[in-house]
């Protein structure tokens, strides 16, 4: 199993659990409440459109278009006029004077209808001319009411848009700026007159409301706006249709009556009153609402089927189209279906839903953060003291007993106590070991160095042994240690082994430092090897030296020669001297062996004295000695030889009888490389030369004579 920190051990499972819980919670919340919320938004939106539709429908069919009784009154007035004038109803089609008279009688009640019903428009159009010399338009009175919500006693908000000026003068009603004396109509466009008029003519019904026609026309008071008109034929009791009367509701008034929303959606929701074409497309009559996008809405491609419209830029609109039942099912006149369409941007419609989503998300995030935070906090509370304890532990001296600070966590404190007591025992054991080493008189000391942690431990004798007399084991620091090591051993201070000489209290001492790198720790043992070294040196000396004279023995001499010749650059010219003490037997026999030994020692002393960088000598056996001298030139070497020869001949020794006697020697010489380059041959040639002297004149010297040597072979 992987090792993980306490924090992770706590954090991961806890966080996973909380996250899981929150996700489950969110899913449940989403499925149960949030989706419901979204559906509710749509439901409320549609309800709201429906309410407005109902309201508008009742306004349109119940209040504004409620003109049936008035129509009867108007047709009654028309019949009165016809009776007064003694003319038939058909005269209206040609008699402008009659029409003028009729309209004078109808104007007042018309204004009353407009004011009572709270409509913005009202009109009576007769089927005949308005004036004798007019442009051919129909006789009519069309009034516009600027104050549909208020019954205006003074008629000051009423204007005449169409009709004879004499009527306006009489009624003190001002003329609209777009005023005209008669009504010019276009059969293709003006359904509000022709549809009910013709339906009335063709129909058999006397109930004129059956012919009521809803239509859209351009506003008569010069505004570039639309007006929704409701018109019925004026049918006299003899079923003659003499014209049409109607009311109108301006786009603004419609708009005002649609938008009665308050609260949050009042600024975002818009409504459209529209007429549906046969292809399902909608022709807007008016938009209502404060929706910032009313202008933008005018461009939208509305249709009955679709309830969402996406526009460029990604805005989505949600629409709800609800039909207004303006006509009864079997009405002879039908002008398409009429709709109230609610429009709202989806982002606004679902604002509550979106906000709830966000709140849920935020709450979840917050809960999660809280949980993470508290788990982190708890984990930290647990792991911090442990970490602190560990740091304390790391920094503590392993040789001393350790006292850790309390963590106030019972388990941890118990652990700390255990560590304390353990360290006590270890420290005691440590110090015992040191004492034992100390007692054993073995000169050993150790160090432990952790460069990464800047830690050094050295045993008590280390500094003295290595020769750092100016510091002590207690005061030395890791950096100091390193610096001293490098200055003592150079760049390779921390390699495996160093053997070195040092000046101890008892003179020169030899030390061996063995080091071992283990992970980060460098362990070192310093051992005093002075005795070992001295013993070795003694053995070597005895092996290579003659015990009587202290000169080299033959083996060592030969080794020297071979080593020297191996490095020929040192020897340009050399000479091998073979010596022989004359008369040794005589002295041995006459004075005893001690005197013989003295005789030998005297020559050896002379030769030893002449040992130099270019000369070395050895005792070959009994009374035979050898010397090898070398240099750059023969003359130089010859000078050495002569000096030794003179010194030897001048050397004296003391006889037991108190006399001083000169020593007598013979000598043979062989030159390197003149005679040979081979050491053995060189020795042999020198011996040959000595042999020649011994058999000639003792006490002299001779140089090897190759001719002679060849002759003897």
């Amino acid at each position, binding site marked *: 199993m992987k090792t993980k920190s306490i924090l992770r051990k706590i954090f991961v499972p806890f966080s996973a659990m909380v996250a899981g819980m929150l996700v489950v919670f969110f899913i449940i919340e989403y499925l149960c409440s949030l989706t419901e919320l979204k559906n509710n938004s749509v439901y409320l939106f549609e309800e709201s459109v429906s309410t407005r539709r109902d309201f508008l429908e009742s306004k349109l069919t119940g209040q504004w278009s409620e003109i049936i009784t008035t129509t009867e009154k108007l047709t009654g007035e028309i019949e009165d006029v016809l009776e007064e004038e003694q003319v038939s109803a058909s005269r209206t089609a040609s008699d*402008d004077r009659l029409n003028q008279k009729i309209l004078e009688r109808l104007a007042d009640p018309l204004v009353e209808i407009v004011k009572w019903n709270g409509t913005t428009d009202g009109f009576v159009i007769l089927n005949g*001319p*308005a*004036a*004798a*010399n*007019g*442009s051919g338009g129909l006789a009519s009175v069309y009034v*516009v009411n*600027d*104050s549909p*919500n*208020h019954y*205006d*006693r*003074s008629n*000051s*908000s*009423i*204007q005449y848009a169409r009709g*004879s*000026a*004499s009527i*306006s*003068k009489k009624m*003190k*009603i*001002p*003329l*609209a*700026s777009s*005023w*005209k*004396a*008669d009504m010019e109509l276009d059969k293709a466009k003006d359904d509000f007159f022709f549809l009910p008029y013709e339906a009335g003519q063709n129909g058999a019904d006397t109930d004129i409301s059956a012919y009521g026609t809803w239509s859209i026309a351009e506003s008569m*008071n*010069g*505004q570039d706006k639309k007006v929704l008109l409701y018109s019925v034929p004026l049918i006299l009791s003899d079923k003659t249709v003499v014209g049409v009367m109607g009311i109108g509701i301006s786009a*603004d008034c419609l708009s*005002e009556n649609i938008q009665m929303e*308050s*609260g*949050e959606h*009042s*600024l975002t929701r818009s409504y459209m009153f529209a007429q549906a074409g046969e292809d399902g497309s909608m022709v807007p009559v008016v938009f209502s609402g*404060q929706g*910032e996008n*009313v*202008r933008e809405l005018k461009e939208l491609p509305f249709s009955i089927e679709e309830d969402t419209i996406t526009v460029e830029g990604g805005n989505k609109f949600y629409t709800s189209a609800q039909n207004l039942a303006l006509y009864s099912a079997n009405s002879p006149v039908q002008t398409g279906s009429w709709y109230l369409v609610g429009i709202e941007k989806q982002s606004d419609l679902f604002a*509550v839903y979106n*906000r*709830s989503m*966000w*709140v849920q998300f*935020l*709450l979840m995030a*917050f809960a999660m*953060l*809280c949980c993470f*935070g508290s788990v982190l906090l708890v984990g930290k509370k647990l792991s911090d003291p442990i970490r602190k304890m560990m740091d304390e532990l790391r920094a503590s001296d392993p040789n001393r007993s350790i006292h850790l600070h309390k963590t106030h966590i019972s388990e941890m404190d118990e652990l700390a106590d255990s560590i304390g007591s353990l360290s006590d025992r270890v420290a005691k054991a440590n110090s015992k070991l040191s004492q034992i080493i100390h007692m054993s008189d073995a000169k050993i000391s150790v160090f432990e160095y952790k460069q990464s942690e800047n830690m050094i431990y050295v045993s008590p004798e280390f500094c003295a042994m290595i020769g750092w007399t100016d510091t002590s084991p207690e005061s030395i620091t890791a950096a100091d240690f390193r610096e001293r090591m490098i200055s003592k051993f150079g760049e390779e201070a921390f390699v495996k082994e160093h053997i070195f000489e040092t000046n101890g209290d008892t003179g020169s001492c030899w030390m061996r430092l063995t080091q071992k790198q283990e992970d980060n720790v460098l362990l070192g043992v310093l051992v005093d090897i002075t005795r070992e070294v001295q013993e070795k040196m003694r053995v070597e000396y005895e092996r290579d030296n003659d015990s009587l004279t202290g000169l080299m023995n033959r083996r060592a001499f030969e080794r020297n020669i071979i080593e020297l010749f191996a490095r020929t650059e040192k020897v340009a010219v050399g000479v091998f001297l073979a010596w022989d003490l004359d008369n040794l037997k005589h002295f041995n026999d006459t004075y005893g062996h001690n005197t013989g030994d003295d005789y030998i020692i005297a020559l050896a002393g002379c030769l030893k004295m002449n040992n130099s960088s270019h000369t070395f000598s050895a005792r070959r056996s009994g009374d035979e000695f050898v010397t090898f001298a070398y240099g750059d030139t023969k003359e130089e070497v010859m000078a050495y030889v002569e000096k030794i020869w003179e010194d030897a001949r001048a050397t004296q020794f003391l006889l037991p009888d108190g006399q001083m006697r000169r020593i007598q020697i013979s000598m043979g010489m062989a030159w390197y490389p003149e005679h040979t380059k081979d050491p053995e041959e060189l020795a042999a040639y020198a011996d040959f030369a000595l042999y020649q002297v011994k058999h000639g004149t003792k006490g002299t010297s001779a140089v090897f004579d190759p001719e002679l040597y060849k002759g003897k072979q």
Partner: protein
Amino acid sequence: MKLKQTGRRVICLLLAAVICTSGCGKQGTGKNENVTVSIWHYYSGQQAQAFEEAVSEFNETKGQEEGITVKAESRGDVNEVAELVTAAAEKKEGSEEMPDIFTAYMDTAVPVYDMGVLVNLKDYLSEDELSDYVPGFLEYAGSDGMALPIMPVAKSTELFYLNKTDWEPFASESGCTLDDLTTWEGLAHTAELYYEWSGGKSFFGRDAAANFMLVGSHQLGKDVFSLENGKAVVTADDEMLKKVWDCYAQPYIKGYYSAYGKFRSDDMKTGDLISCVASTASVSYLPSEVTNEDGQTHEIECLVLPLPNFENTQACAVQQGAGMSVTKSDETREKAAVEFLKWFTDAAQNVSYCLKTGYFPVKRNVNVNDGKEESSDSDVVSQNFTVGQETINNSEMYAAPVVENSRTLRYAIEDALSVNLESYREQYGTLSEEEKQAFLDNSFKEWSKALKDALK
């Protein structure tokens, strides 16, 4: 420690964020706190349209930003609005709740202000803002010092409008020139000549007949009433009244001047008059076509001329301040109402409104002619602004002093110059030539006495 503090701060912030976001479920931002401001106005026709357009624009722009919805409704004429507001203020049985804003002339607003139901707009406008407006004519010396019960929204003056097409044949035959139309005396004489020339048709008529006496008396240096210590002192003297009689009442009685329809522009449309004095705001009603009683129509061209003056007087014209008052409600609604008025009287909106209606902007340094080119196409509208601006620049602008009963005084004068003259005119028409002069002399005495009585 630092880490701990940061951690605490982060937690606090998160907590605050969560609380805020969850708290805004109902009330939320300012956008949702919509204030509806209701307006009653007496505009009709062109002015109503222009105003409605301005309201829509406000609702779609500034209103949208500030969460203000303005709902404007027409409530009859200026007097009806005043009556309705007064009734509402007095909480008469059956009366409606007061609107937040209503349109009024100074003389209709002041009585309502004195009832303590109107906001003193000085409370909502800084000195700087106030100084932008045309000074003087909408201030009222109320009991609590100089007050501003009405926010000026547009100003107008009166001009002389002439049917040039029908004037020309007469002028060329009679030798009359446009110069004759610069004085009231000249106008009366011209009207007489026209009456004779046309076989009994009236030449001239004017709207707001009271202005004739109010401005005229001021111009003659004999104000019909003046303001002393906040009270009206009637100072109408006979000489002034005689001048008014001769220059307006007498021509009216004789049929040289007339008033048939509701406004003189109507009479111009029907060809009953060929000239009139009317407010600059009626320019959109001036006809481009005259329709006779028999349905015959002919196109005409109109000429806009300065208001005539009495001979040997300094040019003087009325400055009428149409304005809007804000009723006391709560601070939010009052502020919203003032916000709308400030927006409406701001240069861009005000000029746009003025161009459609014939009013002049109420802020100084805002010239309606700056925005004219693109908006106005009609020659008459263009002339209207040019001549109107000249009048404002070159004439003494007279604003009737506002006193407690100024409306009553105004009505008395208006009646004296309209309804009362109508009865004299009827009688005059029945008299023989010999009787007429004596009738006129007697009538003047009777008329002036009746007027003075009424003013008392």
